[in-house]
């Protein structure tokens, strides 16, 4: 695990050295602010509803930011040729993937922490519970973590960062569309698709300040599955 942390530290340093991390976080915060004003403050809503609306919109920003942050993780290494160094170092595939995942998740954490002043405004001036804010942010971190895992998986598939983000976005969109599909098809597959939808049914409890074990387990499972997929792809690359 210490080797994974080493990778994580290296990646975090890379985020802060290059403009990518700062640009993505600044853009996400700008979007969050605009959405907060547009969807929450400029409408006649109760404080709790305004907060729920904020979480709903900002989750989309978190997903997008996580994809942008994770697109470079493996693809860039392959593009610049440094991946051979990683591959020949005494590191196992899962250590590489876990290390890179920790780094991108830390960036998502930083992004969410920097946006916390917006719900705090509602807490000070309105009537919302602190638990609602914490639960909403936990949801943000979970959905951001799942999106980061998808992005990392996509990054292992190709050496182009552009292709990587397109693939990652395609997977996310397909998983978002599951909910729409579930409403149109027959059981039992509709139940499966509804349960597998990345956002709608699973994020809704967090949005309203409800901490649900099922939704939490879902996001952890999605992250685990895509990270496992990324590990398996790296393992397969050793054969080439």
């Amino acid at each position: 695990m210490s080797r994974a942390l080493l990778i994580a530290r290296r990646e975090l340093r890379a985020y802060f050295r290059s403009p990518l991390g700062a640009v993505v976080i600044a853009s996400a915060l700008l979007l969050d602010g605009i959405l907060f004003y547009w969807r929450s403050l400029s409408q006649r809503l109760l404080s709790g509803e305004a907060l729920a609306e904020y979480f709903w919109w900002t989750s989309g920003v978190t997903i997008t930011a996580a994809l942008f942050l994770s697109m470079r993780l493996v693809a860039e290494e392959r593009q610049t040729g440094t991946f051979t160094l990683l591959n020949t170092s005494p590191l196992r595939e899962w250590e590489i993937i876990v290390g890179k995942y920790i780094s991108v998740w830390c960036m998502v954490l930083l992004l969410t922490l920097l946006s916390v002043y917006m719900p705090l405004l509602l807490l000070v001036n309105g009537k919302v519970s602190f638990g609602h804010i914490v639960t909403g942010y936990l949801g943000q971190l979970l959905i951001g973590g799942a999106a980061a895992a998808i992005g990392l998986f996509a990054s292992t598939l190709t050496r182009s960062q552009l292709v990587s983000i397109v693939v990652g976005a395609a997977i996310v969109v397909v998983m978002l569309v599951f909910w729409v599909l579930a409403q149109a098809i027959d059981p039992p597959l509709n139940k499966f698709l509804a349960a597998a939808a990345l956002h709608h049914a699973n994020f809704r409890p967090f949005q309203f300040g409800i901490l649900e074990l099922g939704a939490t387990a879902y996001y952890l499972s999605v992250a685990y599955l895509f990270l496992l997929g990324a590990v398996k792809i790296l393992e397969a690359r050793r054969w080439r």
Partner: protein
Amino acid sequence: MAVESEQAPAPAPKLAGSASAAARGGAPAWTVATYVAGLVLLYLAQRVIVTLDHVSLVLSSIGVALIIAATVVRFLPQFRGQGDRASIEKLFGALSLLGLFGVLVYFISSPTGQDWLGIARLGVKSRERVETLLLISWVTLIAVSVIPMLFAEVALSSMRRAPHLEARRVRAAAASGLALALAAAYCSLFVYAASETKARVDYSYFKTSEPGSSTRKMIESFTEPLKITAFFPEVSDVRMEVSGYLTELVKGVPNVELSLVDRYLEPKLAKDMKVFSDGTIVFTKGETTRTLSVGADMQAARAKLKTLDKDVQEQLYKLLRSRRIAYLTVGHGELNAPSEDEKTKGRSADIVQEIIRTQNYQIRTLGLAQPWAAKCRTTPRSCSCSARPSRSRPRRSSHCSATPTRAGGCSWPWMQTPW
């Protein structure tokens, strides 16, 4: 023999040729494609064009035939291959059989299969348990067979024309696919089990999704069995909200049975309960039913969801207590019949009347011409009250001074407003 085995690899070109032949041997590349095509056809026949019986049957048959054919090809002597290729073919054969077994389990889970095996004759709960088990089994079996097969085929495809076959690479690819398929199955079960625990903590400021304590007490006081049937589409935002509320409401109450059903999947039940639109909740106690319409569209139902607890409480009141009559006296300047002047000052008993109505009372007025005492004596389980605007004790009028009812009702001779 030893000499033969030592001599066998001697001619180098021949070895390369035989290894190449071994790599080219085995089942052709289209076998996996045929297998997957069979599964896709079966899916389309069973899930997409179910309404067209004959087409569905034909497509299902073709799908199953393709799957069986692709499996049989794996075991034909001419496609067995040699050496490493033979072991890869065995792997593909085993995976194909596993998938075929998954298809068999799927057919067992269908209504026809359930009839044959007597599952349809089991009790409701046992049948549901068996159906869930079969559903999980066929999905897992097919995933566990198809994903490794595809992974192995991708690994093998690049070596089909190669002089040497890297069997370990193909096996590793299949193992990766198997690990992913099993992880997906495990994660699905993990999420399902976590969801089924219904473990949740509500930190929201307005707990609209939770039933109030008075509604809980009311539902606990039911001595007769109460059935709550909510008609919502299988996948709906409103269903999730209502389901959370109702589940919380009936938790730990033995006399209450809750069922959430899709109107289109249970047309007979919907017809029996006279439900003609989605988003309807029916409360049934014996022969009496009460219906509450919430709606299935979130935009339309948002307002109703905010008052869901109050509306449910109202319906439960109506089931719990038989309809009663409340007489409000008029003619003494009571607030329940305010003058225009009082109305403009906002002094009326509208809220009191609304509360009385929600307690399943029918409100009737009792004027000077109708001696209320006589009325109350003759009307069983009735009560009367008069809402007076004054702070001072009202003058006793001839019909207000009468004794309260003797037929089980009660009376409030006057009601003082707080201002």
